[in-house]
Structure formats: structure tokens, C-alpha cells
């Protein structure tokens, strides 16, 4: 016999034991509602879930009950998703429901809701986990079927917008039994091929066709993909959990291609702009050099020997003019004084004295005559203004100077 336990010890153990079993978490249970009662204003809903052979207590706490889109009622067949928990105080087991959906067509939806909630609580859909798309991808990975129209749409758009890009297709089944593992593998292998961005694409299809993209494995593969990934599954109205987990969601494969290769980065326009900028920069540079050159030329010319020569030439001309005018005025001055001298000379001329009635006496040799040089009988020449007389001296007397 095992050791004796208190009730508390037993219930604590049971609670611990049950909480360890992962299969009792997020369990989906089909059954019919019975014994439904509200929690007397607490917002909790208590009921029992039964089928033909068994019954289990169930509770939906207010936090979950508030999100209910349908009104629960006794006799309703539902699919409840929740955790099995053990309430130690009363030793009772209950299903703590997180979501409830009507049974039948709603089963898938309820499961999906539950999965969505679970992944959401793990942060799989969090905006903060989303990677930005590269502004200009060089290598683009595509996970899709080789035969689908989606691939052609994507290739057309990338080819038109960015013909220098490289595209790597990671082929996968997008429907059928192998779709899930095939897509997971395709994402995993292309993720390590150095792509800048990955497009996960599938054209439109029925809800069942698209259901693979709601599979937890694919959603996680999308979330764990290290390369930024764009999801484009189905058409505008179809949104799968993979879409929520991707870094960007595109409504169609074409739109995914447009998101991956933005039009603004049109390479031709970019090249043209770069060429214009280059030519402009060079033109500006050249004109500034020309300006510099002509200012240097101007400066150089001001120091030119030719310029010095011209200056010397000018000086020379000026000096010559100065000398000429000096000489000229000197000549004029000299001419004037010459004229005055001439007149003065003329006034002193002996001829002028002769004209006044005097005469000059000389000996035969033209020498002026004084008393000592003439004797009686000497021949003398008497010269007046108009006549020359030859005479012989008859007497020589000295007088006292008066006339």
C-alpha cells in the first residue's frame, strides 16, 4: 500500500499531474451544452458538455466569454477549445473553454480561432517581429508551384521593373496531402540561399485549397524565416494565418512582386538621374576652373615684361617730349638774347659814329693812329661815312683833350 495522503495532498498532486499533460492543453472537445447558467453577474458562464456516454463540467471565464460571437444555449452542439483544469478545493475537474464554435461547419473555424489565439499569444503575428523589406532587392526567392499562374505574374512584374535582378524559384506543391511539408521545406531551403526577399505565393482556390496556409507548421516556417517574406495567398478576400505571420501581406501574387520590387526604384530613371548629376558636376567644375584660369591670366598679364616695356616706352616718350620742349625754349631764349646783343652791337658800331660826321684815321696799314706813330710827312688814311681820303701830315701838335 502506498503512503497515506491527506485530501489536500491528493488534490494537489492530481492538479500537478494534470497540468503537466500537454494533451490537456488547447484540447478541442465536441459536445452538447447542458445545465447552462450564468455566473450571477460575474460574466463567467458555467455549463456541462455531454455526449451520449459522458459528461464534463465546463466554464468560460469572462475574458473569453466577452469575445463570444454566438449566444450559448442548452442543447446546442458545439466545439469547445480549452484547457482541462483541476479545482483542488472541490476536487472537481473542468474544461476551461477559451473559444466555442457551433459544431459542423464551424469546427474548422473554431480550431483556426484557437490556433490563431495561441500563435498570437506567442507573438507570431506581432508587428514588432516584422522585418522591413529591402529597398532594392538583388535576389528574390519565390516559393510557389512551378505550374501556377502566380509564378508567371510575379516574373512578369519583376522582369519589367528590375530586369537586372535575379530570381530563385523554390518549387513546392501548393495543394494536396504533401503541400504542408513541401511548402515548409521550400521556405527553409530558399531561406539560406542569400535572397534579399522571399515571396510565398499561391493563386486563388477553395477554402480547402488554401487551408494548408493555415497549418501551424507553415505559419511557423513563415515566422521563423530569416529573410523578409511577403505572403500572397489566394485573392483579396482570403487571409490565412501565414499571411498574418509574414512580414508583409499582399492581396495577390502580382501585388507581392510589386511590393518586393518598388516602382520608385526604376533603374532606367535612376541611371538617367545619375548621369545628369555626373555631367552637371563636371560642367560646374569646368566652369569654375575656367573662371580661375581667366583670373590667373589677368593677374599674369599684369606682371608681364611686355607691360613693363610699354611703361618704359611711355616714360621714354614723355622724357623726349620734355627734353624737346626744354631745348626749344632754350633756343628761343638764346635767339632773343642774340637779337638784343645784335642791336646793342649795332649801336656801338664805329660806322654809326661815322654817320654822325666823324672820321677814322689810320696809317697806310689800317692801324689806328696815335701821336707817337705819325710824323710830319707820314701818309695817313681818313675815312668818313662816305669817302676815303689819303693825306700827308704837315704838323703834329699835342693838345689837352678838348675839341
Amino acid at each position: 500500500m502506498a503512503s497515506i495522503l491527506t485530501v489536500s495532498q491528493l488534490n494537489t498532486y492530481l492538479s500537478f499531474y494534470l497540468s503537466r499533460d500537454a494533451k490537456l492543453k488547447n484540447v478541442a472537445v465536441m459536445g452538447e451544452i447542458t445545465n447552462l447558467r450564468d455566473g450571477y453577474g460575474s460574466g463567467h458562464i458555467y455549463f456541462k458538455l455531454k455526449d451520449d456516454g459522458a459528461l464534463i463540467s465546463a466554464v468560460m471565464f469572462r475574458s473569453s466569454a466577452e469575445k463570444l460571437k454566438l449566444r450559448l444555449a442548452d442543447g446546442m452542439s458545439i466545439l469547445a477549445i480549452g484547457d482541462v483544469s483541476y479545482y483542488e478545493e472541490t476536487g472537481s475537474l473542468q474544461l476551461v473553454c477559451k473559444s466555442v464554435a457551433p459544431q459542423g461547419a464551424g469546427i474548422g473555424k473554431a480550431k483556426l480561432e484557437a490556433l490563431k489565439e495561441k500563435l498570437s499569444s506567442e507573438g507570431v503575428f506581432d508587428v514588432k517581429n516584422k522585418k522591413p523589406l529591402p529597398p532594392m532587392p538583388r535576389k528574390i526567392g519565390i516559393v510557389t508551384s512551378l505550374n501556377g499562374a502566380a509564378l508567371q505574374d510575379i516574373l512578369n512584374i519583376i522582369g519589367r521593373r528590375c530586369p537586372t535582378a535575379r530570381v530563385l524559384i523554390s518549387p513546392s506543391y501548393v495543394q494536396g496531402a504533401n503541400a504542408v511539408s513541401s511548402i515548409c521545406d521550400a521556405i527553409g531551403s530558399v531561406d539560406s540561399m542569400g535572397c534579399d526577399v522571399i515571396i510565398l505565393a499561391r493563386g486563388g482556390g477553395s477554402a480547402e485549397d488554401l487551408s494548408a496556409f493555415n497549418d501551424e507548421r507553415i505559419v511557423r516556417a513563415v515566422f521563423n524565416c530569416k529573410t523578409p517574406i511577403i505572403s500572397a495567398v489566394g485573392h483579396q478576400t482570403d487571409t490565412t494565418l501565414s499571411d498574418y505571420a509574414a512580414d508583409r501581406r499582399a492581396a495577390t501574387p502580382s501585388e507581392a512582386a510589386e511590393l518586393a520590387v518598388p516602382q520608385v526604384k526604376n533603374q532606367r530613371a535612376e541611371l538617367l538621374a545619375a548621369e545628369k548629376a555626373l555631367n552637371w558636376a563636371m560642367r560646374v567644375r569646368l566652369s569654375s576652373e575656367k573662371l580661375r584660369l581667366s583670373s590667373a591670366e589677368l593677374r599674369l598679364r599684369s606682371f608681364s615684361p611686355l607691360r613693363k616695356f610699354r611703361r618704359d616706352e611711355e616714360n621714354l616718350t614723355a622724357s623726349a617730349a620734355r627734353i624737346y620742349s626744354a631745348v626749344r625754349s632754350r633756343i628761343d631764349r638764346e635767339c632773343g638774347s642774340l637779337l638784343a646783343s645784335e642791336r646793342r652791337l649795332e649801336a656801338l658800331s664805329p660806322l654809326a659814329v661815322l654817320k654822325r660826321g666823324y672820321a677814322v684815321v689810320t696809317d697806310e696799314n689800317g692801324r689806328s693812329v696815335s701821336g707817337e706813330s705819325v710824323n710830319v710827312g707820314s701818309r695817313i688814311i681818313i675815312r668818313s661815312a662816305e669817302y676815303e681820303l689819303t693825306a700827308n701830315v704837315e704838323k703834329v701838335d699835342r693838345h689837352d683833350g678838348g675839341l
Partner: protein
Amino acid sequence: MTDMTFEQAMKRLSEISNALESDSLPLSDAIELYKEGTELVRVCRKELDDAKLQVSVLEEGGTERKYE
């Protein structure tokens, strides 16, 4: 030059244009840079004119084959 990607070439062109605008660069260097720039433009234009999207398919084992 030939192993430069289009984006690298664009980046280089922008560097060259910026450098040309600086007066501290000797003119002979500026002319060399301009030559390099015009050559880059020529090669890029040819690349664009000749460009045909390169598409390959990833096969098991990580090898790539040309997509037909």
C-alpha cells in the same frame, strides 16, 4: 567595374558626382573620375539594355538550374 552590381554602380556614381563638386580635388583627378563615371553610365545602360531576368530553380541538395 564589370563585377559591380547596378546598385553599387549607382552608389559609385553618386560618390563621383559629390567628389567632382569639391574644389579641393585636382582637375586631372576630376577628369579621371569623370571618365570613370561616364564609363559606369555606359556599362549600366548596356546592362539594362541587355538585361533579361535571370531565373533559376532551386533543386534538392541546394543546386540551382536555369528556369526555362
